[in-house]
């Protein structure tokens, strides 16, 4: 019987609207990789935040090596040799790798100043011990996401962590980087560390973990040895029913070209080229999926087409009409709908009601705006209809958007964008952060639009989503399309290699 190094007993944590952890019991053996799985909102991150001292549990106890501990803040957790790599990296972008690593535990010289030399050497030493090189002086804002994650790992090792919590570490990585991460995790286990691995990707659970704890709606629903279970069983434990992992897609012919993008150039926020002479087409009834590591121009591409960013060159045509650099309102007039990638930032106004949000974008024209005043009966009727059609809950149109769940917020956006028969739908990360039910709903809506003969531009970091929905996949790397593939003839591995620029598809040689 292996030694239990960490035990959490009867942990309960309430937030204003939900009970995030409901009498959760969780135990980890010394030296294992323990997967903590569950849907978004199941309470995994909350549980780990309590362990790391970021939140305080309303009730329950924590034992480290059999000793009861009270983790009031992260400092206590660090002293107990617990380290956490957060889903959103906790790195300060303008500071250097070394500065980020030593933050809060700086080596001192002359009793006053930071001993940067000693710090740099230590960083080098740790990174080499787990098998990779890193530039200690590079600024975080200038290095890739994969490297940033390594900085996070070094950061917690620098603090002497024995228990490492990894919160969805693979969400931002390519399949190849995921493999490398698993190598690092295995070498950490050899050094005697214990790892808690939060994820909802079941193939990864199978590949790397020793044991699995499954959570659903704030409760633990089961603990399994990885070798004694399979993906289907875990999946049904996660969602509480059998899930269809495949989407049902009808074969059909595509119509006329709807969107034609020709040698499009654009700059990013730092005024550097983000899109380099990008060209592609989307036809009626076709879903073109853009696969790529985030930050390779997808955001800029969507923004330029929807009028939120100026094109620096090239043309965008909708049914032969040049719409390059139209204002967002003029783009909407052309019946282009847009589900934005960051719904909380762009997708809705959280202090506006459901009804008010449902007219965003068409607020200025009849029937909603009539003469000098807004036409509230038209606005309310519109809301009533969409709330019913899209099953938005709760169904009160006067609720503020901020009081809705993420899934229902996304339903409001989808309902609004699909209303009025758009000719082109741009769907950027349409299911990010949604639970399985809402994801299915959104996928179904996108497929319905496709079957109605609409053109759809799908951008997603989720390769499974790209592979299952798209009729054609474009792989984007450093602002260029490096391959256009048939989803039936490719797989995650090939996409991963293309996304990282490791391989270029011969059919699409790099333009001069």
């Amino acid at each position: 019987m292996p030694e239990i190094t960490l035990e959490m007993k009867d942990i309960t944590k309430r937030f204003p609207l939900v009970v995030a952890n409901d009498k959760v019991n969780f135990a980890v053996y010394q030296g294992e990789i323990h997967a903590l799985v569950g849907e978004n909102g199941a309470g995994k991150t909350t549980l780990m935040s309590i362990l790391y001292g970021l939140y305080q549990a309303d009730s329950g106890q924590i034992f480290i090596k059999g000793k009861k501990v009270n983790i009031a803040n992260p400092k206590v957790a660090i002293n107990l040799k617990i380290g956490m790599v957060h889903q959103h990296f906790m790195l300060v972008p303008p500071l250097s790798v070394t500065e980020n690593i030593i933050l809060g535990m700086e080596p001192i010289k002359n009793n006053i100043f930071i001993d940067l030399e000693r710090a740099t050497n230590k960083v080098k030493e740790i990174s080499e011990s787990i098998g990779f090189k890193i530039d200690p002086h590079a600024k975080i804002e200038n290095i890739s996401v994969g490297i940033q994650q390594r900085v996070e790992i070094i950061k917690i090792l620098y603090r002497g962590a024995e228990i490492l919590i990894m919160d969805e570490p693979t969400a931002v990585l390519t399949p190849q980087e995921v493999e490398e991460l698993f190598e690092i995790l295995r070498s950490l286990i050899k050094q005697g560390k214990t790892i808690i691995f939060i994820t909802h990707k079941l193939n990864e659970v199978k590949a790397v973990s020793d044991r699995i704890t499954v959570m659903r709606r704030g409760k633990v629903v089961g603990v399994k040895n990885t070798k004694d279970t399979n993906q289907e069983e875990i999946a049904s434990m996660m969602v509480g029913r059998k899930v269809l992992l495949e989407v049902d897609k009808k074969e059909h012919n595509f119509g006329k070209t709807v969107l034609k993008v020709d040698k499009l150039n654009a700059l990013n926020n730092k005024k550097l080229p983000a899109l380099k002479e990008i060209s592609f087409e989307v036809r009626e009834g076709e879903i073109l999926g853009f696969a790529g590591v985030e930050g390779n121009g997808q955001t800029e591409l969507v923004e330029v087409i929807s009028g939120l960013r100026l094109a620096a060159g090239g043309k965008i045509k909708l049914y032969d009409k040049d719409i390059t650099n139209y204002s967002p309102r003029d783009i909407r007039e052309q019946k282009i709908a847009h589900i934005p990638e960051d719904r909380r930032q762009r997708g809705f106004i959280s202090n506006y009601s459901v009804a008010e949000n449902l007219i965003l974008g068409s607020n200025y024209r009849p029937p909603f705006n009539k003469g000098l005043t807004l036409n509230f009966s038209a606005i309310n009727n519109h809301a009533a209809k969409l709330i019913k059609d899209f099953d938005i809950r709760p169904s009160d149109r006067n609720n503020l958007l901020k009081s809705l769940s993420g899934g229902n917020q996304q339903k409001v956006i989808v309902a609004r964008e699909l209303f009025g028969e758009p000719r082109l739908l741009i769907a950027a990360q349409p299911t990010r952060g949604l639970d399985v039910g809402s994801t299915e709903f959104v996928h179904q809506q996108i497929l319905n639009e496709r079957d109605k003969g609409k053109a759809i531009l799908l951008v997603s970091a989720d390769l499974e989503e790209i592979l299952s929905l798209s009729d054609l996949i474009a792989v984007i790397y450093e602002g260029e399309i490096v391959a256009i593939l048939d989803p039936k003839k490719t797989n995650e591995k090939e996409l991963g290699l293309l996304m990282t620029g490791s391989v270029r598809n011969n059919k699409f040689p790099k333009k001069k």
Partner: protein
Amino acid sequence: MFGSIFNADFIASSIRIAIPLALAGLGGVFSERSGVINIGLEGIMLTGAFTSIAVTNFIQNPWLGILAAIIIGIFLGLIHGITCITFKANQIVSGVAINLFASGITVFFSWLLFNETQIMAKISLPIWGLSIPNLGEGSSFLRSIIIIFAHHSPLVYLTIIIFILSHLIIFRTPFGLRLRSVGEYPQAADTMGVNVIKIRYIAVMTSGALAGLAGSFLSLEQAHFFVKEISGGRGFIALAAMIFGKWTPFGTAGAALLFGFGEALAIRLQSVTAVPVQFINMVPYLLAIFVLVSAIGRAIPPAADGIPYEKEVG
């Protein structure tokens, strides 16, 4: 004409004009580097200006007057901290409230204690440094050097020391690293065991101390009197200097000197041109707007500037 304007006295007076802007601007650097916008600098300067003269006149010691201004500055910084760090109030609103409070309280007490709204300084600090040689003896070059570098109020030298120390603190010490990270990404600092709240309080109270000191220079050393609203928007010009100086101590000092030159130049031009005095008086404010416009896109504030730190979400 130019010779009569750009001489050593001109540079020395530019420096004197720049000192309060630089000190208050440095206060802004500390506060905003930690993520707290402090537009209360204006009111803190005003209160410091009043306090230093009041205390100096009562106990006949300008050093204690300056100390009192610093203490009252720390106190007002603490109030700003309580409202916007602990109570997460809107930082601009809290700053405006401090400015309103300062306008009221200074006039209130100057009526109450002195029965008038203009108070003359009974004593000020001695000049430190070398004495200025008469034009006859020594070269005019030497004379200029002394006027510019070695014939000032002790507060001028103190300011230079404060700036060097601040640079070292912000960029070389653990406190500085934590300060910068708290202003950029407080969640990250928190997860590394850095006490975000504590760092922000220290930073805001430091900014209060510096603005209080700036105010004492304004009344005790520059004007030799206190009158209501003597700060005259300098707290805001100091913020413009901070932005132009990209939130660094030396950058802020440079920008403050630029304002000093501008204002000194305007004052000189007044005597040689027919431009009405009212237009000359606009120069610092126009310059501030101009500087802000030109800093756009060049100067990027700390990422968490102005955002209260929320630990628990949901």
